[in-house]
């Protein structure tokens, strides 16, 4: 079963959260809380799945005009720096190497380099995996090849990488580590002041692992309210009620709407496993720049799994973060919406993505384009 937003909840666990009457009441409460039209409220989410929920449920259309919900840098494949993609492509072209990675990474272009997909079309060995377990299995099944897993993703995706490295993968297995952590990116956006934010909708699935503590210093330092929210439209509406209430009451706290899956402490075992294998380091986010302590590198005990210990490779980093004309950087920083990019839907479509934000299930441009395409079909 592939991860797919169309069927986020096949067991209908969140069924109660589809209560339309309650959603109506929440929307009404939002209007009441934002009844002072002179005050604008701008909230950012940092998760592609939230963007999907918000865009496809038409949630922005039912909010009062002075309540804005904008997308931030919540798309892991979009923020993966082009030099890492170029590295993966270069390695994939070597004989006796197989690259494994998640599906969404395949089509992300690095300017001047193409994508892993186009490299595969020209004969490079690249295999899409659903899980870190599949990557390990590929190494076991191909003892004559160096199998290199291109490990991307946020705090939800890092624990599987860590747990498999800890378990001792085969000798022909290594990783390109491009994992990122979210809170330092939030801090950077707050520090830059480029967009005046009144609060954050925190990424529910990331928080199932991290819990709520890593976000508390941000609320304290920047006096900004944050609410962990789930992924049904009602979850987001209730999260907004909580954020607006905090703003109106002058509070800046980390609160939890997604109580059915997120706790204060999160998944402590997963956190410990990650800390055993990785340490934080400064890291680049595509079209955003370097962010202190926002990436992970292997601790010295695990350095033998670093790709550079297995494959020797020199690359010349791509000259452009994104192709000229692509405004993905501003989209990721919440400065503009996709439709403000002149290439959106014209030169840039999910079939022919110009920039990374038009790729995959979590790219903001791709999600907005997908919803518009659905609308025009019906």
């Amino acid at each position, binding site marked *: 079963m592939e991860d797919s937003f169309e069927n986020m909840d096949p067991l209908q666990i*969140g069924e109660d959260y589809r209560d339309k009457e309650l959603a109506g009441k929440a929307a009404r409460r939002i209007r009441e809380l934002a009844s002072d039209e002179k005050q604008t409220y701008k909230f950012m989410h940092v998760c592609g799945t939230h963007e999907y929920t918000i865009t496809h449920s038409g949630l922005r259309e039912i909010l009062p005009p002075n309540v804005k919900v904008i997308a931030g840098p919540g798309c892991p494949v979009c923020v993966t720096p082009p030099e890492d993609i170029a590295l993966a492509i270069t390695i994939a072209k070597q004989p006796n190497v197989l690259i494994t990675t998640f599906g969404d990474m395949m089509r992300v272009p690095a300017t001047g380099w193409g994508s892993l997909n186009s490299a595969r079309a020209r004969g490079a060995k690249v295999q899409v995996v659903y899980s870190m377990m599949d990557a390990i299995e590929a190494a076991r099944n191909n003892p004559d090849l160096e199998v290199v897993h291109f490990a991307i993703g946020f705090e939800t995706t890092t624990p599987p990488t860590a747990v498999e490295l800890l378990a001792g993968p085969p000798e022909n297995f290594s990783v390109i580590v491009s994992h990122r952590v979210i809170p330092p990116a939030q801090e950077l956006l707050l520090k830059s002041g480029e967009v005046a934010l009144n609060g954050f909708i925190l990424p529910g699935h990331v928080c199932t692992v991290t819990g709520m503590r890593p976000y508390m210093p941000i609320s304290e330092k920047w006096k900004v309210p944050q609410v962990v929210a789930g992924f049904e439209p009602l979850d987001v509406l209730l999260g907004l009620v909580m954020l607006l209430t905090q703003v109106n009451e002058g509070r800046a706290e980390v609160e939890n709407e997604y109580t059915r899956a997120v706790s204060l402490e999160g998944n402590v075992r997963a956190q410990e496993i990650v800390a055993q294998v990785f340490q934080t380091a400064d890291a680049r986010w595509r079209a955003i720049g370097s962010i202190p302590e926002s990436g992970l590198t292997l601790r010295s005990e695990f350095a033998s799994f670093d790709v550079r210990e297995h494959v020797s490779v020199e690359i010349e980093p791509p000259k452009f973060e994104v192709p000229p004309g692509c405004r993905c950087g501003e989209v990721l920083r919440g400065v503009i919406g996709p439709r403000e990019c002149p290439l959106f839907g014209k030169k840039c479509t999910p079939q022919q993505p110009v920039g990374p934000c038009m790729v995959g299930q979590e790219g903001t441009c791709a999600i907005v384009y997908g919803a518009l395409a659905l609308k025009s079909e019906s």
Partner: protein
Amino acid sequence: MCLAIPARIISIEEDKATVDFGGVTRVISLALLPDTAVGDYVLVHTGYAIQKVDRDEAEKTLDLWREILSTEDKTNP
């Protein structure tokens, strides 16, 4: 990528579990969430259970919201 899908645990064998995603069954890893039992609902991300889903908590929270949203808004009389 950060999407996690709920599933119900059907059986457990060491650190693997067979789970039901509403008709589709699949073997997942419990390496990150060993403290689980058959019948539990878990969130699965890229083949790994990462957290339990507490259905009772969901109901309790929603009941609370029903109450809160039925009362008059006190901040804007």
